[in-house]
């Protein structure tokens, strides 16, 4: 009987060797471990054996059963792994094919840049103030200390609107966002005319100049101005704030330089240059080899302008500055044609 069991084990294990698929393995299991398999027959026949033989044969039969079961399990695992390996291989993709397109929207580059600027200014405590695009000569010029026919007006060529009966105060397309300074100051001053509150605002918006449309000049452009008014505001504060802004905008180590300049609505006035972020100040075509980029005009708010805004210049002081987001983009991305901005060519816009 024991020989028979050995024979069963040997035959079964031998036939298992050649099995490579799930179906054959199942057939093998039925044939060798199923109810009618020779091994199970041995178990069934145990009762017919003598008391002496029974434990020995029983033990041997159990051993063979365990051996066959574990061999089966091992085989089953191997077959499963082989099948998985095969299917993984078959499922492989060409990962270099392009991904499926997702339709995305984008903000216009000017909006993106305006947001960058305004986000930084917001963190620095400047609230956004917006005002109309078509203005009167009075607000765009006179109240900002550009008297009629003053040579300073040559600095800004103006689009005038055809309008009856307004010879003294023509309607025009605002040439800068500075009219907002007047609107804002008057609005704030109205809160408490005797003791107007301090102001810290950013004024973004579209402005217009009478220019030919060329690669270098445009008839419309965005501007962001800043305005601070308070009882304790100095030129040193102007330098500190604008240098802080430049470091946020152009990098922690951006160097700035302030040059004396002239604007009718500020005094003292200055231009702020930032060390060229393209060449690091070594000189390149973007900075025309100067190492510096002209970024903004600024100055202490002119006493006349404070007065026109409802702030007493003997008690209040302030500073203001203005800069162009499109110019910043042109410098940053070395865009050499300003006409791209309002050309609305998707091939340009989709690059931002």
């Amino acid at each position, binding site marked *: 009987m024991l020989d028979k069991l050995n024979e069963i084990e040997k035959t079964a294990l031998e036939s298992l060797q050649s099995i490579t698929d799930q179906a054959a393995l199942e057939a093998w299991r039925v044939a060798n471990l199923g109810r009618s398999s020779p091994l199970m027959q041995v178990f069934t026949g145990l009762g017919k054996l003598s008391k002496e033989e029974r434990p020995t044969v029983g033990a041997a039969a159990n051993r063979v059963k365990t051996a066959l079961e574990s061999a089966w399990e091992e085989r089953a695992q191997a077959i499963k792994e082989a099948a998985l390996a095969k299917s993984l291989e078959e499922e492989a993709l060409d990962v270099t094919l392009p991904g499926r397109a997702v339709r995305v929207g984008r903000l216009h580059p000017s909006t993106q840049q305006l947001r960058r600027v305004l986000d930084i200014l917001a963190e620095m405590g400047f609230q956004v103030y917006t005002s109309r695009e*078509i203005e*009167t000569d009075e607000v765009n010029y006179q109240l900002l200390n550009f008297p009629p026919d003053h040579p300073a007006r040559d600095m800004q060529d103006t689009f005038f609107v055809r309008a009856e009966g307004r010879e003294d105060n023509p309607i025009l397309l605002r040439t800068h966002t500075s009219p907002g300074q007047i609107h804002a100051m008057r609005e704030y001053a109205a809160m408490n005319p005797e003791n107007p509150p301090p102001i810290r605002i950013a004024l973004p918006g579209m402005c217009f100049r009478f220019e030919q449309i060329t690669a270098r000049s445009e008839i419309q452009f965005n501007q962001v101005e800043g305005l601070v008014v308070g009882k304790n505001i100095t030129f040193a504060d102007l330098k500190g704030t604008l240098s802080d802004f430049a470091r946020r905008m152009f990098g922690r180590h951006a160097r700035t330089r302030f040059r004396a300049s002239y604007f009718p609505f500020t*005094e003292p006035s200055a231009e702020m240059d930032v060390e060229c972020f393209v060449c690091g100040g070594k000189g390149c075509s973007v900075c025309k080899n100067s190492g510096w980029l002209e970024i903004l005009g600024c100055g202490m708010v002119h006493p006349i302008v404070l007065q026109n805004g409802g702030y007493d210049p003997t008690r209040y002081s302030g500073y203001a500055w203005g800069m162009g987001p499109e110019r910043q983009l042109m410098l940053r991305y070395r865009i050499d044609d300003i006409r791209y901005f*309002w050309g609305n060519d998707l091939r340009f816009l989709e690059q931002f």
Partner: protein
Amino acid sequence: MKLPISWLKDYIDLDGLTVEDIARKLTLAGLEVEEIKYAGLPMPDHAGSGMHSSGRHEFKTSGISWDRDKIVVAEIREVMPHPNADRLTLLDLYDGQQNQVVLTGAPNIFHLKGTGKLAKPIKVAYAKEGSTIYDGHAEGLVLTTLKRAKIRGVESYSMACSEKELGISEEHEGIIILDDDAPVGMPLVDYMGDAVLDIAVVPNMARNANVMGVARELAALTGRELKKPVIEYRTEGESVENLVSIEITEPELNPRFVIGLIRDVEIKPSPYKIQRRLRLAGIRPINNVVDATNYAMLDQGEPLHAFDYDVLKSRAGNKNVKIITRSAKDGEKLTTLDDVERTLSSTNVLVCDEKGPLSIAGVMGGAESEVTDKTKNILLEGAAWNFINIRKTAKQHNLPSEASFRFSRGVHPSLAETGVKRGLQLMAEWSGGKIAPGLVDAYPLKPKDSVVDVSPRDVKRLLGIDLTVEQIAELLTRLEFKCEPTARGLRVTAPSHRLDIGEGVIGLADVLEEVARSYGYDNIPETRMSDSLPPQIGNPIYEWEERVRDLLVSLGLQEVVSYRLTSPERESRVVKYDEYVTLANPITPERRVMRRSLVASVLDAVEKNARAESIAMFEIGPVFEPVKSDPSTGSGQALPNEPRKLVLAMTGLRDALAWDVKESPNFDFYDMKGRVELLLSGLHFTDVSYIPTDSVPYLHPGKSAEVRVNEKVVGVFGELHPLVKDKYEVEEAPILVAEFDLDVLRTVSPSYEIKPVPDVPPVFEDIAVVLDESIPASKVEALIRQTGGRALANVKLFDVYRGEQVGAGKKSLAYSLTYQSDKTMTDAEAAAIRRKIVRRLEHELGARLRS
């Protein structure tokens, strides 16, 4: 303004400062140097190790440097004929070391050919073999190095140079003939090497549009001494005061008029040194008299005008000349020295004699009295004019000139006298003329020198720096302010060449600017504000609009920004308006009005991108609605309204084509509607309805809807009308457009609540009904929702069927209903609701349940 460094050195010692140092100091102080053009002086070498501390070019740089050893002063001793070429000559030239034979074709010494040894040698600028100069015959500026070559059989290796070859001017008609005192053998760079600063003069720096002004600034910035020219001369003959009188009719327009007289001038070219300086400064030398007026103007800042005295005398019938200044009569005529007859207006001021106008004051002289080659005696005018008036006049006659540039920015009347004296001095020096004693000086309106009080407290309050009274005085004295101590600080009097200093609070700002410039903006520290914070107001309108932008971007739309300026024709493709905000001075008819239709702007952008596979874009911005004059203010036409609009446009393929996407349907009405719905739900509007409309002229009458939020019309959308679309050069795919009035939409209050998420599972059920084609789906859904009540959490249309199975004129709508209640709903409860819904649909809409 172009300023030769050599001229500047007449008035200030610049030793130890490089050209770039000078340019940097001026730039930081507000005289921005836009370009440095070298004409001889060594250029900074930034390429190699020779970098100075800041290590960069700093300024736009051009020009040429002259090699000390190879370009020198030489003299021509004889002009000899060329053996093989008639038009060429050979120069016997001595360069200080040896004699050279130099080939030239210069016409300005040709007349000396074959005349033998010259009695007086001619001094020239001589470039030796191996020197680098500009090629005189090349177009533009091309550097060339002189090499040995045979020209018509004669060896040539060096040359006598023209101005073009040395980078002084464009002049290449002849060689430079230097003044007789030029020392032979001296390196040319030492004799006349130069560099020209091109300075942008801003309006409040107009006083510095001259050499003396820049020298004064530089003296203040460096603490060096300003060496003013000595303006003294000998006089002879009868005093001009006995011969000429002046009548100023309007002192406001002509505060001062000064006249001097010089007799017996010999008109001839100015000394070469003067011609060279004028050319470097951008002014063409004419003759010694005209050059003297220009030179004195660039030198001192006072534009001068020279009259031929004999012409004026003969006009006066040989009697005394009377100069009258007055406003022109409208329509009065004068032929100016450019031989153009100009029709004048009362804005213009004229310099006249008793016979009539002589010149347009401050702008241009008249032809009749101008200086000619035959002029012997000259009246020299230096005057002060009202700058606004000059500015208007120069604009009106389109006559920008060096004189009108200065007068239209303001020239201090004190300069009239200085200018005339300097002019007379130079004329006498260069023409041999004799200056008559005295000046006729009419000075009816003398400006007061401004007086301003300034204290260390003011400096601290506005500039943020601590300066003592002494320091402030020192900074201002350098700029020639007079400073007297007071109890509070200083009483400061502006120097009498300045018109830009006011009084009171304005004067204080003016003076503090001078303190800051003199102190150096660089030296002012950077501080963080210590003032109290402003009230927090925010900008809800701006913030809301930014939210709209973000939503639209998240829906896959590209933002565009168009020109606000357009033409009625361009807009009329979409919509016709009679009234526009119209420009008085458009740059082109194409951009002569402010847009009224944002749809037109966005359709232009669609057309521009017509070849794109697919377009989905939006623009947010104002349109401009003209407003009739406002009778309440009586101030003429009112400012236009600037309502803000949003326009969306989509066209082309819905899906991007790719290697596994071979085709795609076009965007249609429902693609646009989906975006509109998501935009409005993103803004938290819940009460939104879409009403069919056929009243939007630019939209397809059967494919357009009005959008209402809380019953308020906020916009429209739909497919572009085929007739409108035909006017655009676009592809065949339909164009979907939506237009919203943001000002209206913004004022509708959103209804917004966050609902709890139910714990109980929902019950789902489908229902399909057949009804008449004419019944809109929105009505069916509204009825279902109304009937279902609170338990009906959601209704979703999942199928629309038309065809045989439902019969002609009918459609089948299939809805999936979601019931949701606080406790688990039984089938019976769900069935009850469903029965109610079906009953009402049957009853009110004539629907029939589809089995």
